[in-house]
């Protein structure tokens, strides 16, 4: 019964939402169910926060490996929670929004979380370079084609690419590096992307049918 009820709900709601696409008065159902999901997710957030605290407090109390990092997590959690709930340092007082301009909560967010997030994002520049180095090594035929295509696109996006092939007459302009770069992006690249998108669409349909019909139930915690 513990498994049957979720399966019945999944079948009923899944079918209803598929049918609602074709029935205009039922169009708003999707938004309604999204709202229900958000409400459930809010309750689940307490579980997440509680789990985070439990894991790190256990680590601290048992002096597990790397327990020092847990101090940062627990202190950060407590500071932000207290400041946000009690609206400490909020110019508008307890009635104003915690994210109001000039509030301590917002200042913490802007001066700690945003720069830290930006720092992580900035790492991408280095990772793109190292990943490109590996991907573009001409180890086999496919990698060589990839290398040539990437080289043409890189050149085509710079003034140097235009300069190199500007002598090619207008009637053969497709052979100019910037035009080749545009062709690679708009034809083979786009065609490949669309093929992937069609596959994804069909994959989602197939998976949805498996879930709606109850054939796929691993996500419910049932292993056959």
């Amino acid at each position: 019964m513990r498994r049957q009820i979720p399966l019945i709900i999944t079948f009923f709601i899944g079918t209803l939402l598929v049918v609602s696409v074709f029935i205009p008065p039922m169009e708003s159902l999707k938004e309604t169910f999204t709202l229900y999901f958000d409400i459930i997710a809010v309750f689940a957030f307490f579980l997440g926060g509680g789990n985070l605290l439990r894991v790190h407090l256990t680590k601290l109390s048992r002096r597990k490996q790397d327990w020092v990092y847990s101090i940062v997590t627990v202190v950060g959690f407590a500071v932000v929670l207290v400041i946000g709930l009690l609206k400490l340092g909020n110019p508008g007082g307890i009635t104003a929004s915690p994210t109001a301009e000039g509030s301590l909560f917002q200042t913490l967010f802007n001066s700690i979380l945003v720069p830290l997030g930006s720092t992580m994002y900035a790492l991408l520049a280095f990772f793109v370079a190292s990943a490109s180095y590996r991907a573009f090594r001409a180890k086999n035929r496919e990698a060589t084609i990839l290398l040539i295509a990437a080289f043409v696109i890189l050149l085509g996006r710079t003034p140097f690419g235009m300069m190199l092939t500007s002598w090619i007459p207008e009637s053969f302009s497709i052979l100019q590096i910037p035009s080749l770069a545009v062709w690679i992006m708009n034809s083979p690249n786009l065609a490949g992307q669309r093929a992937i998108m069609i596959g994804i669409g069909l994959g989602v349909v197939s998976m949805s049918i498996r879930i709606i019909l109850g054939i796929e139930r691993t996500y419910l915690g049932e292993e056959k």
Partner: protein
Amino acid sequence: MNQIIKRRVITRLSSIVIIKILFLSLPVVAEQLIPTIDDSVEAFIPAPPAEVIATDAVYDQGGAVHLEWQLSPDDDGSAGVYNYQICRQQEGTDEYIPIDSVLAGVSSYIDETVEPGRSYQYIVAVNGDCGSAPSEASNVVTPNIEWLNFGLSNLFVIGLIICGSVIYFIAHAKRGKKLFIRRIAGLEAVDEAIGRATEMGRPILFVPGILDMDDVQTIAALTILGRVSRVVADYDTKISVPVSRSLVMTAARETLKASYMAAGRPDAYSDDMASYITDEQFGYVAAVDGKMVREKPATCFLLGAFFAESLILAETGNSIGAIQIAGTARPAQLPFFVAACDFTLIGEELFAASAYLSGEPKQMGSLKGQDVGKGIAMIIILLGVIATTFGNAWNISLLRRIADFLRTLFEVG
């Protein structure tokens, strides 16, 4: 010396006088430059718009009316016409109430503030420099609820064919018929990757993307987690599932628990296997990266919905020498995974993974049905390419009509 001072004083005084004359003469010059308003010209009122037609918006809940009109003849892009005021009269009232306005040059409007079953009439007034001119009243329109969206009939038929073929092949597989499914290298490597972690005595890291349970990629990732954790439980290897959403954490725990139960090792299961980190995208990445560097997992599964963090996670995994199996349905992130991971499940393979790993005939049947959809797409694309190419090259109208038909076949709405 005195003479020099005298000359300087005279020069300075004369320059001051010249500057003053210039400033005093400016208003006079300005007056001459500005054209004077000729009072004899009549105030400009633009001609009214014409033929205001109101129609009930199709395939909706009766909550919209579509308005179209002919622009005022004076609305030719030159200054003078500001905008069009839309006024509405509701059934049972005498007056037209302004409801909205649109800029000059716009000749249509959708009124989404109507109620189904009530009748409305509209006038459109053009506003000009010195006044406005209303159009004649439109026809009376009564928006109605439509119960079926026939604009999506093509989608319905295509959906029916694909869903029908999936269900047919599921039933076909249930009857015990053998189905051929192509080999997916990334999934064939799952057992090997788990075995490697077991041999090395190092943990397995499973990242189910950064979206919530309302995303089908997350559900696909958790179904794969179910299959992976079953083998992990059998091999008695450590697994860690850091998640960025609370609901995913509870679902991942249920999945893990069920797998350990199925493997007959409920004692080996612990809630700590799936832990919540944070909803914050880069905070989550920092935590998972830290986990990778400190714990050095032998195998990393990056399956689900990923954004900018895909390459950061995959490159960190690569730097610690972990064998990596990644998969996502976000085409923009696939090149990063291909570049940095050992195996990549491309798009549909992510959704097929759970069925493939389970080996159950019913699940495999659904994959075969999916292939029928792909076959249909391939045939239609091929026909479309042939019809467009030869139709345009040799100007054959029949082929061009076929190409147009195939193109509209997949247009929604």
